[in-house]
């Protein structure tokens, strides 16, 4: 059982194409009740039953937190990914009954901030859809900078500009428009908090510049949806449950553990929340740590692993699970 993520029985109430890559999905509760309240930046984990395979992918809630009659998410199609987004695009139709987790927020607004400066890249816009709606509803001060490849791939850019006008600034890669990041960061009033969601390269760039320019780390928030990386298959023994399992090349260690009938905790499935942390009992081989949770020292020690994103190459691996 994933910690804190009780399940919700929902039905797909609408599926709307947004552009060439992105589709939006609406969920309502099967019993017709309101969905649980959430705050801007929250995500849900969507269970996808694809034949005998169950995929669990996290997606940010993008609707207004003021409206809990439905949840909406936007999924960017990834043709070379592990298949979750393709399943959503191809097989999820209005009327389909699905199971999603309760919302979890690992990217919440710090409401003590005087101003919220938001930086989005590509599909990283989705948590900001909810956050801006939340702030606009309470008169909050925000500014959103959004980079996209082309105008037609600027998902919801038109809606955002309509809603918030000059508080939204767009940058298009194909027109060579770049955020003047140092200037932007150096001209913010005291009490500003920074939020960034987008590709890993963008997050790293923004965090590095903010740190170098004297932004205290408590004022810099980021959301990282790292999909588990594929790799060579490997075998794992689970000491407590007494099972030996094989992790397929397109499967994450966490998914393989779940497929074996063990119910480990998780929240983010992206290597940032710390919930899935597992002790290594013994190992002969090399860890491929892809998480952002464990310290470098933990990584070197080989005593812990985050099964949602990390892999292993070698002769044998025994985990405590």
């Amino acid at each position, binding site marked *: 059982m994933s910690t804190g993520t009780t399940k919700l029985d929902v039905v797909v109430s609408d599926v709307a194409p947004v552009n060439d890559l992105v589709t939006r999905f609406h969920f309502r509760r099967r019993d017709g009740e309101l969905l649980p309240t959430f705050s801007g930046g929250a995500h849900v984990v969507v269970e996808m039953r694809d034949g005998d395979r169950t995929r669990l992918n996290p997606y940010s809630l993008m609707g207004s937190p003021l409206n809990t009659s439905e949840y909406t998410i936007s999924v960017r199609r990834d043709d070379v990914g592990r298949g979750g987004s393709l399943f959503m695009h191809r097989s999820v139709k209005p009327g389909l009954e699905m199971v999603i987790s309760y919302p979890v927020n690992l990217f919440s607004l710090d409401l003590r*901030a005087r101003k919220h400066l938001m930086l989005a890249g590509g599909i990283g816009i989705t948590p900001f859809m909810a956050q801006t709606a939340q702030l606009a509803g309470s008169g909050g001060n925000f500014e959103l900078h959004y980079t996209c490849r082309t105008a037609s791939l600027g998902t919801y850019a038109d809606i955002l500009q309509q809603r918030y006008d000059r508080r939204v600034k767009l940058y298009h890669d194909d027109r060579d428009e770049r955020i003047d990041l140092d200037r932007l*960061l150096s001209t913010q*009033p*005291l*009490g500003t908090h920074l939020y960034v969601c987008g590709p890993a390269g963008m997050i790293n760039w923004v965090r590095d510049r903010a740190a170098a*320019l*004297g*932004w*205290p780390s408590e*004022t810099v928030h980021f959301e990282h949806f790292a999909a588990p990386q594929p790799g060579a298959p490997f075998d794992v023994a689970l000491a407590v449950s007494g099972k030996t399992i094989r992790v397929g090349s397109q499967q994450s260690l966490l998914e393989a553990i779940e497929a074996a009938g063990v119910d480990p905790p998780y929240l983010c499935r992206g290597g940032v929340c710390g919930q899935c942390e597992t002790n290594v009992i013994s190992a002969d081989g090399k860890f491929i740590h892809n998480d952002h949770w464990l310290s470098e020292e933990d990584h070197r020690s080989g005593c812990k692993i985050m099964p949602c994103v990390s892999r292993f190459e070698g002769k044998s691996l025994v985990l405590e699970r």
Partner: protein
Amino acid sequence: MAAKTIISRPVYGTLSPQPGKHHLFVADAEGALAIIDMAGKAPAGFFDGAEIVFIPGPDGKHIGALEALKPAQLHIAPSFASLLPRLRQTLTNAHMGLRLYLSGTEGLIGQAMQVALEAGIDHTSMQTEHRGSLARRMQCVHCKGITENVTTQPATCAHCGLLLLVRDHYSRRLAAFQGVCINAEDRSEVPPMEEVFR
């Protein structure tokens, strides 16, 4: 020293140079020594973008040592009250990236922190180091008056005259410790007064 069981009791650290270009120091008395010690660990050119606001106190010590750091600005003030408008002004005009360093007595750290909190800096983002006197700024919970430089336990409220137990409960909003009447039941009971916050 500080009672760990009372979580409102402020915990101070050791000043350390933070990344960034703009650094604002506010210090009194021996707080200057915290800045000077930190300077030993600071990268070259660190003080080119630093402003130091210093309240030397009656003996006027440490001014020369601060000058020797060659900060972009050094401002000497006779009291905290006298530098308050300037500090407010500096913080109002400041941008993200300004780092704040507070060192010296608890009264100075607390009051400067109060101004900085109003300006939008989170208290966890400030560097603090306690140096010098342990004298406390105390609020009487009965008349709400604030008494500065309290060194005794119990202490007399300078406003209403009640005899107060100086508690470790600290209010960040008021930048003061709470003083509670120690002999409310029987005023003739007067416990001995000891100097404990020197």
